[in-house]
Each structure stands twice: as C-alpha cells, then as structure tokens.
C-alpha cells in the first residue's frame, strides 16, 4: 500500500471514530458543565470540577443502584455459567434417553422472544413474591440457549479419548466435568461471562417491571428516573450519572472485546 492510500485510509478511519464516539465524548463534556453554562450554549468545560458527579451521588442513591446492578449482573453471570456448562456437558459427553428431545427444546427457546412472554413471567414472579427482590431480577435469566450452544461448541473440541480414559479409570462424571472440562474451557467461560454481565447490566424492560423500590432498583432504571425528574435544569448531573453507569461496561468491553467477538461468532454462526 502506498503512502497516499494509507494516509487517506487513516483519515476515513479517524472521521468514522469521531462520528461514532461523538455522543459519548459529548456526554462526558456535558457532565462537567453547570446548568448556567449549558444555557449559555457552552460545550467545553472551563473548570474540570467533579461537582456534577458529587451532586449525582448526593441526589439519588447512585451507589445503591450501582451496587444492585453489580450484584444482579454478577449473580446472573454465575447462574448462566453453571446452568449452561452443566447442560452443555450433558449434550456433549452423556448418552441418555430423551437427550435429543431436550436438545431440540433448547433450540426451540431461541424462537421465543422474551418480550412475548413478559406478561405471564411478570405474573409468575409476582405470585412467587419475587418482585422488588434480587430473585426476580436474576433467576429467570439463568438458562440461556446461546450460552449452552457456545459452551457445547467448545466442549466438542475436547478429545473424546480423554473422556473415555477417565471412564476407564473410574473417574466420576462430576470430577471429570469439574477438573478436566471446565479448566480446558476457560476462554469460552470467560466469553460467556463477559456477555452475561454486559447484557444483564444493560437490561431495561424487566427491571422496570419488577422493581419499584430503591433498595433493589438497578442503575438503568435509576437513570430513567433521574432524567424524568431533573429535565432541563440539571443536565450536567444527569450526564455525570450516565458516565458513571457506562464506565464499568465500557471497560469490560475494551478488555474483553477480542474474546467476545470470537465467542459471539462461534455461538451464532456454527
């Protein structure tokens, strides 16, 4: 590639980055502006003080919301890892009657959009007394067909001879699963972990339905609430809360991007 071509490619790339990143950078700049400065039409902060951030934490229980989001995302992540890896193990290594039917039902779940089942699910969770409770926010998401397929894909690459050898030497299934299969699948487990954490952290409709109490409300619903209450006067504070909310997932994405890409492809295409 000659110099001119390379330079023009860089220019196009940079223009695209500016366009894509603009809303995020803009929100970041606004989070350092006071209400008066905003009304004057300013967009570049004169002093980089954290007063909006401090206010955001004072005005709404942001720490509580962030903690709730963290706990919920972490529980869903662990739950999905356990449930998916157990199922994937059974589909790859175990032979038992009904296995194919079970595998078929797992595929079938991918045909059902979550939003189409949300009414009965809400009524179920309500009748179990799980509203305003971590249980209602987490347990319905423990089983995930995508997660099962992703791990199954990886488990299939583990040599079957290893399994047979373990069988011959009388190693119990659970020991084989725990001490051989899982350690060999660290990367896939990490990919699924990042994926579950990210999607749960960003969930919106379900937490909106099943929480109306500060003690369990997640940060996404907290944002919606702030935006409705604050409106025109305190946009800087709202943007500070936005930045605080997106920081954990952006960092996670930047660290796990390569992993995630590989995993999404594997679980999706093959």
């Amino acid at each position, binding site marked *: 590639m000659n110099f001119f071509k*390379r330079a023009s*490619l860089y220019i196009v*790339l940079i223009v*695209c*980055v500016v366009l*894509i*990143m603009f*809303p995020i950078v*803009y929100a970041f700049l606004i989070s350092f502006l006071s209400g008066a400065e905003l009304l004057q039409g300013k*967009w570049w902060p004169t002093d980089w003080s954290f007063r909006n951030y401090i206010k955001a934490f004072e005005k709404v229980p942001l720490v509580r919301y962030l903690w709730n989001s963290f706990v919920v995302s972490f529980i869903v992540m662990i739950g999905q890892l356990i*449930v*998916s890896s*157990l*199922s994937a193990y*059974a*589909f790859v290594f*175990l*032979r*038992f009657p009904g*296995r194919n039917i*079970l595998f078929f*039902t*797992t595929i079938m*779940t991918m*045909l*059902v959009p979550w*939003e*189409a*089942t*949300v*009414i*009965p699910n*809400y*009524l*179920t969770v309500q009748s179990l007394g799980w509203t305003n409770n971590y249980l209602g926010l987490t347990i*319905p998401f*423990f*089983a995930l067909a995508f997660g099962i397929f992703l791990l199954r894909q990886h488990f299939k690459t583990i040599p079957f001879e290893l399994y047979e050898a373990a069988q011959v030497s009388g190693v119990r299934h659970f020991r084989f699963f725990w001490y051989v299969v899982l350690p060999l699948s660290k990367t896939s487990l990490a990919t699924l972990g990042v994926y579950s954490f990210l999607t749960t952290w*960003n969930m*919106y409709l379900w937490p*909106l339905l099943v929480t109306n109490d500060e003690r369990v409300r997640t940060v*996404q619903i907290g*944002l*919606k609430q702030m*935006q409705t209450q604050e409106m025109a006067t305190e*946009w800087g504070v*709202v*943007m500070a809360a*936005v930045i605080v909310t*997106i920081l954990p*997932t*952006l960092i996670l*994405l*930047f660290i796990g*991007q390569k992993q*995630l890409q*590989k995993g*999404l*492809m594997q679980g*999706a295409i093959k």
Partner: protein
Amino acid sequence: MNFRRVSSNISYILYVIPSFLLFSTFVFYPMIRTGYLSMHTTNFQGAPTAYVGFEHFRYLIEDRNFRESMKATFLFVLYTVPSTVLISLFLALLANEKLKGIQLFRTFFSSTLGMSVAASSVIWMFMYNPSIGIVNKLVVALGGQERQWLLDPDTALIAVAVATVWMNIGFAFLILLGGLQNIDVTLYESAKIAGVSKIYQLWRITLPLLSPTLFFIVTVSLIHAFQTFGQIDILTKGGPVNTTTVLVYSIYREAFVNYNFGFASAQAVVLFFIVLVITILQFALVERKVHYQ
C-alpha cells in the same frame, strides 16, 4: 436395562434438569399462557375472567391504535435495519485493513456494544433537546430550521431510529468484522497476483464469502428491531400521537399501564409470530441462497 444403567441415567439427567426447569417455567409455560390469556378477558391481577375466543385478534385488525402501532413498527424496522447493516459493513471493511494501530479503531467502533439502551437514550435525549442540544445547533449552523425533534410527529420516529442505529452499530460491526477475519487470506493473494481490481475482489470474493455472516446479522437485527422498547420509553413514550408506539411499547402500555392483560397478550402473540416467520425464513433461505465456505 440393569440397575447401574438406570441409576447412571438418572444422574445424567441431573445435569440438564436446571436448564430444563428454567426453560419450562420462564419460556414454554409463559408462551402457552400468553396464547391462553390472549383468548380471555382478565382482571387487574391478570387472572382470566371470561373466554372470548379470537375476539381480541378481530379487534386488533379493526383497532386504529394497533394499526398505527404496526405501521410505526414496520417503519422503524425499515429505518434501522438496512442502515445499521450497511454502516457496520462499511466500518468492518475499513477496520479489516492491515494498518498500524487498527486494533484501537476496532475497539472504538465496537464501543456502543457496551452502552446500555437507557444511557444511550438519555444522551440522545439531550442531543435532541430543542434549546440546548447539539442537533438543533448543527442544523441551524447548516442553514436549516430548528425543530422539536422528539415532539414533532414528522420527525420523532426518525429521530429515535437514528439513535437506535448508533446503539446497534457496535454489535453488528463486531460480528461482521469476525466474518471478514474468517475469510481465507490466500484468496486475496491469488486475486492480487491475477491483477483483479479492489471492487471486483469485494464483489466476487468478500461479499459472497461474508454472506452467511451478513445473513445472520440481518436476521438478528430484524428480530432485535421488532423487540425495541427502552429507547421509546425514554425518548418519546410512544408519542407524539402514537407515531412511535412500536409493538413492544404497545404491549407494555396495554398490559402494565391499562392492565388489559388479555388484549396485550394478543399483541404478544403477534410479536411471537413475526419473530417465528423471520426465523423460519432464515432457515429456509440460508440453505439455498447463501454461499458457504
């Protein structure tokens, strides 16, 4: 079957019991229940009170609100899906070039994947703010007319669609880039030796070999677009005059604002069938039309 075999079968089933129970409780039962509720009127607690058969569905066809909602939904899909795929494809082709520091550009391009619908919507809400938002400032600077983007029936849906395209680029980009990276580089080397032009390479090598991935991302984006909710709830609440009441927002409003669970369930059944048709089409077409390596 001897005893040992039976007992090992039982222990095997323990591995699949958790996912089976969860799928039954939170996917299959509620799907059947949705169908059941769609044929009943319900009380405020969501308990069925009377059987009405297909009355809700007949009413759906006549209902002006629902017709508007379907129109908004399909327009929204039309505005968001092709543009998301095309923009992401363009970015993926760019980011697939072998240049120094390209990894950094890839990370930036995929960054909206880490942005929640709520946070993104709040940012766009501010950008569309008629008095202090950047959109009006830009429009005025370019000689255009100031507008209330989210309150004007002519622009609200498009405004939400633009924000949505931005939110979805990260995911589509990452998937398409993965597809491009899976293409065998020796093909390009042979093409280079044969002196084939870049455009010809794109048309004859890249796009055909990328077609499974492209097809996948189109299907996923379609299904995803039909499930849109968060940005509508934050940006427009379905207004102005129902121009942005997409299907899931309509279900939400009917069920959780009006407590009309039966009628809402009928709409949920419609959503189910739309997604089903897309999925079946994908399976039917994928075998015939798409080129596999």
